């Protein structure tokens, strides 16, 4: 009997703490598959965020650093600049990357740090129990927007890929989703490209992954994926926003 599907080598055989239906597990797997396929686990250093993925340092089999909230790109800069031959990635949620760590995100991007950033956007703060994120949609109910996010009061959501695609240091900015098998396959290709770009010293790559949070959205896992499709994708269109390999290097 031949094995056709197995745990990627770059993922440790440990119990994950993620909630049922949470898509962090899928994205962890895609990152680990990319590391395996490129054969770089032995020289990869991952930076875990503060947020739901805080324990990612236990899950990935490569060397891992746990950064302060939002500071992963600065920590990654310190690792990569002192060890240019390592493969360095950050794995960050929307609060980490797009609120408290926005300065670190924007400046590591514009400096063209040769790192790979995996950005999980699920429109909510999961670990602290469902508060408003910088990416929470207008009208979306969270524990700190109990009457729905009202842009006049709580401001507007931030579209990170669109924003970063204007920066010269960015080699690749793509938004993908893991709501369907087809989208998971596209996400995998984008993540692989993000890592390959780094190995080829092309500069900053960010892959924004639209993800679900059934627990804090108050939906079943299946309903959550439908909610993602119906509400998030219209506001956060999928696609490649910048690719220096494409003609002109522009968004599609």
């Amino acid at each position, binding site marked *: 009997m031949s094995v056709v599907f197995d745990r990627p080598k770059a993922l440790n055989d440990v119990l994950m703490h993620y909630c049922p239906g949470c898509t962090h597990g899928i994205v962890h797997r895609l990152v680990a598959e990319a590391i395996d396929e490129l054969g770089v686990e032995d020289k990869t250093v991952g930076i875990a965020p503060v947020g739901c993925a805080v324990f990612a340092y*236990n899950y990935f089999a490569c060397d891992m650093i746990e950064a302060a909230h939002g500071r992963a790109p600065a920590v990654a800069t310190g*690792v990569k600049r002192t060890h240019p031959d390592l493969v360095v990635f950050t794995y960050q949620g929307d609060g980490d990357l797009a609120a408290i760590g926005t300065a670190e995100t924007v400046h590591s991007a514009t400096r063209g740090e040769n790192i790979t950033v995996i950005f999980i956007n699920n429109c909510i703060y999961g670990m602290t129990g469902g508060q408003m994120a910088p990416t929470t949609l207008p009208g979306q109910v969270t524990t700190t927007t109990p009457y729905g996010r009202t842009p006049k009061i709580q401001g507007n959501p931030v579209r990170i890929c669109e924003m970063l695609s204007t920066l010269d240091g960015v080699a690749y900015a793509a938004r993908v989703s893991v709501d369907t098998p087809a989208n998971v396959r596209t996400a995998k290709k984008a993540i692989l490209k993000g890592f390959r770009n780094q190995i080829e010293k092309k500069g900053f790559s960010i892959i924004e992954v639209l993800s679900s949070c059934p627990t804090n959205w108050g939906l079943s896992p299946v309903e959550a994926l439908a909610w993602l499709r119906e509400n998030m994708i219209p506001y956060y269109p999928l696609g490649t926003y910048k690719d220096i390999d494409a003609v002109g290097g522009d968004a599609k």
Partner: protein
Amino acid sequence: MAKVLMKGNEAIAEAAIASGCLYYFGYPITPQTEISEYMAKRMPKVGGLCLQAESEIAAINMVLGASASGTRAMTSSSSPGISLKSEGISYLVGSDLPAVVVNVQRGGPGLGGIQPSQADYYQATKAYGHGDMHLIVLAPSTVQEMASLTGEAFDLADIYRTPVIILADGAVGQMMEPVDFSERRRREIPPKTWATCGHGGGRKHNIVNSLLMNPEDLENSIHDRFERYRKIEAEEVKYEEYMTEDADVVVVAFGIAARICKSAVAAVRAEGIRAGLLRPITLWPFPSARILELASTAKSFLSVELSMGQMVTDVKLACECRRPVEFYGRTGGVLPEPADVARKLAEMARKHI
């Protein structure tokens, strides 16, 4: 190597490079910007990197990344910028990472001023970040010490896996004096087997982390760290003494204040007042044991600081209430004159003898 005439800030930068620190991450702020400028000029010539970060917060986290992957790295700032770095300093401590952080102090609170100050003593020795923690704090008082203590700081940081603070001030940072870079003992550094620099297929993955969700685990890790602190307290206390042997009144002062006090002690000695000076070089660990010894012969102590009086509390604690401890200081960037300190010493001589 011959002595060279240098600014204190530049001496720190050159000493860091001489100590094998080839990575500097900083953000400009007066009165320490010369460190960044010197690094920017020198690093490319020695195969290193000086990177100007977008903020103090980013700079300290770049140091954290560099240090986590096993590399000597440094950042520097002045008081308001150090407040921003305090988050990263706490994470460095929690992750048991070596680092050298320079604070060329200016007046505070808030934006304060840009003239010399020692008002960050409490911050440096008691509260550089959240949590149960200490930092080794070194206080240079000459340009030569700016250099030699920087080299020492890197060694201490690596030996004890802790951030080390060089608590300088705008006066020592800006003044020019001759400095000799060969004047330093080098210590044995343990291998950094904990570093996250790629497992290379030869070991289990390393994790650099300050999070321990189980209270007992966190308590145990803090106890381990405090074991190291006890060793630092036992082995790394440094101070200088001047005419303390027969002193009736012992001045305790560090950094630029100690130099002013030395002149004052010499002046009042000429008038027959038996004064002496104890200059802590390590502010943490504090030379409490030596102060307690001196309390058996001296009749009183005077803490002189460029602040409203912060180290004075440590002098009082060290004395264990056996002798009166008084304070004299100027703050906001004002330097006391030796004559001011001499007057205070004369007054104390009349009162306590």
